[in-house]
């Protein structure tokens, strides 16, 4: 009986998280357009539903019903699977992401995550790295020079920014003595790690921006020069998969920022339920992403690489050194 309940709870949680993750990009697109609108002194979507709330639904329907174009002489198999390959890793990341302390549902004590891995952080970094494959496949299979250039850029960008990102996290791991995310969050109960690790956070956040391919690092789809980068040739549902995966990566980065540096679900001063604190913090980071997008231009490819290798990597190593000196 115990086993059955445990299995059922896990099933419910899996389904719940999958559904939530599928739905989350929907309000995010609305939010992005609304924020863009207000920053630019216009209204954003207004016509579908109250203040355009149903606009993402309309967009989704449009994408669903759109013709699915597959370019001539493309690698058809790769072209078809690329969006799925890009979509899966962000979902897999959330297996190891805790959203709060243990809660009890119907008298059954359960933690708010799917799997409490003791190498959760490593797992997340590793799985998030898999997203490159979707991008490479998509760019390569399209048989378009724009897509190819876009995917080449993405490749170089993701690979080189994963290094400072991983290094930046080491500081946190050193402080919390654990790679388990809920342990890391618990270690921040007295004081958030941002206080100890400002440099680490800075490197992590910049690298995160690059990982999520947001402005100022959105070279992969730089519409200014590459049209839409690796998903130039995609349309309809396949295109929307890329979009969903992009928003989920953004969400992942925000969640990681909160978990690693901003005390996870631990609030300050105002006692709010843990998931709400968590959501608020994540929301702030998502807003930051969008705010940046509508303020900054983007870097050039070679400048991005030199920032990654010449600035962020040394900084993150310096951060490890400093942390090491202070810890021991």
């Amino acid at each position, binding site marked *: 009986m115990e086993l059955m309940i445990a299995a059922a709870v896990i099933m419910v949680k899996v389904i719940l998280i999958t559904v939530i993750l599928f739905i989350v990009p929907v309000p995010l697109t609305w939010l992005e357009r609304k924020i863009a609108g207000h920053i*630019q*002194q216009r209204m954003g979507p207004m016509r579908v539903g109250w203040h355009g709330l149903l606009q993402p639904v309309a967009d989704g329907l449009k994408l669903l019903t759109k013709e699915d174009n597959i370019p001539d002489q493309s690698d058809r198999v790769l072209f078809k699977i690329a969006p799925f390959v890009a979509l899966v890793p962000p979902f897999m990341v959330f297996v190891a992401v805790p959203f709060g302390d243990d809660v009890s549902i119907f008298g059954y004590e359960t933690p708010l995550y799917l799997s409490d891995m003791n190498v959760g952080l490593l797992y997340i970094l590793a799985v998030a790295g898999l997203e490159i494959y979707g991008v490479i496949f998509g760019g390569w299979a399209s048989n378009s*020079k724009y897509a190819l*250039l876009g995917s080449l850029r993405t490749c170089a960008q993701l690979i080189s920014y994963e290094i400072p990102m991983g290094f930046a996290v080491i500081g946190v791991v050193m402080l919390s003595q654990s790679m388990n995310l809920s342990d890391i969050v618990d270690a921040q109960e007295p004081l958030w790690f941002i206080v100890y690790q400002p440099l680490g956070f800075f490197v992590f956040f910049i690298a995160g921006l690059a990982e999520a391919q947001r*402005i100022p690092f959105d070279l992969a789809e730089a519409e*200014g020069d590459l*049209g839409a980068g690796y998903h130039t040739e995609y349309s309809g549902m396949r295109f929307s998969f890329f979009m969903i995966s992009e928003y989920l990566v953004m969400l992942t980065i925000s969640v990681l920022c909160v978990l690693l540096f901003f005390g996870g679900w631990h609030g300050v001063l105002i006692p709010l339920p843990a998931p709400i604190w968590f959501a608020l913090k994540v929301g702030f980071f998502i807003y930051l992403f969008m705010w940046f997008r509508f303020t900054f*231009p*983007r*870097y050039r490819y070679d400048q991005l690489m030199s920032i990654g290798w010449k600035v962020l990597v040394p900084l993150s190593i310096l951060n490890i050194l400093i942390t090491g000196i202070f810890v021991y």
Partner: protein
Amino acid sequence: MTDISLLSKGEAGQKLTKELLLNLGPQHPSTHGVLRIMLELDGEEIRGVDTIIGYLHRGTEKLAENFTYTQIIPLTDRLDYLCAPSNNLAYVLAVERLLGIKAPERAQYIRVMMAEMARISGHLLISGALPMDLGAMTTLLYVMREREMIMDLMEMITGARMHTSFCRVGGVREDLPDGFEPRCREFCHVMKQRIDDYERLIAENRIFLKRTRDIGKISGEQAIDWGLSGPCLRASGVNWDMRRDNPYEIYDRLSFEVIVRENGDCYDRWKCRMDEMRESVKLIEQCLDQMPPGPVAVAMPDIAFPLNKITVKSSMEAMIHHFDVSAYGFPVPKGEAYVSIEAPKGELGFYIISDGSPKPLRMKVRAPSFINLQALAVLARGCYLADVIAIIGSLDPVIAEVDK
């Protein structure tokens, strides 16, 4: 197992890799119209540029040979559609030079004021579009907001937002409407604050600086050799502004600074436009201050339409002139004239050869965008793919004018 380095080597040891030919445009978000550029790429680096234009060629010059001098005025609007009043002004000045007449003072002030408004409108668009091509979308929306105010003023004066065709040979179409002056002053007031805003948003931004500083550099001599004009030339340190050096209309009565910058890169071309807008606002204010009362068109019924239609009906002679001008146009003395003005994009010249008939024998437009765009091939060589976008943006081509 084959050594991988052997695979990329040919027989004589040379590399088997070849340049990638990338076709940028004619449908591309950053080419500002239907411009097509064939890029020879080595990785992301540009090896060769071939600019292919003509997708918007409408044969303005051929059409002009079949139009009367009055009918050409709306045609000139369509050249550089961002600053139609400047085009009107240049064309009308050329015809006036041939006719040997000058517009009344008030008309000249109105023309100059509108040309300066057009300059702001043109510069605004490009100084917002360049950051947008580099990713900063918000700048474009902000400049559109102020441009809308200019459009509003234009609609107030002429009744059209873009294709104003307000200048007439020997004057302007109508007098300024009531309530224009306070509105225009309000615009000048707001505009000054707005330029500071744009600079606050983007001018010091390190990313923007990195993307534009030392990109697409051209020296002063080279710029002259390639025929660059306007802000593109002045950004390279050549102190030449036709408004000051060969003053036309009433520019010699207005005081303004000619903005010159030294580096000749994308950033300087952008900044030059920003500062020129400030000067233009000053010019508009001076025009409003100095605007004299009086007629707005020459009292020559055989050239200009009478503003008041009652005069047409009251006298037989006026009626005949009116019909003559409307139906057949007015003859222009035999000869040729080249008149150029300082348009927002550079030297805009109209060369008209008249054979004494009401239609020109030849009308040549010296379109600044056309010449400026030519320099793209020099500027972009050795740059990166993403820089080409910045260079196009900083050269400010309006494809309608490039293709004529």
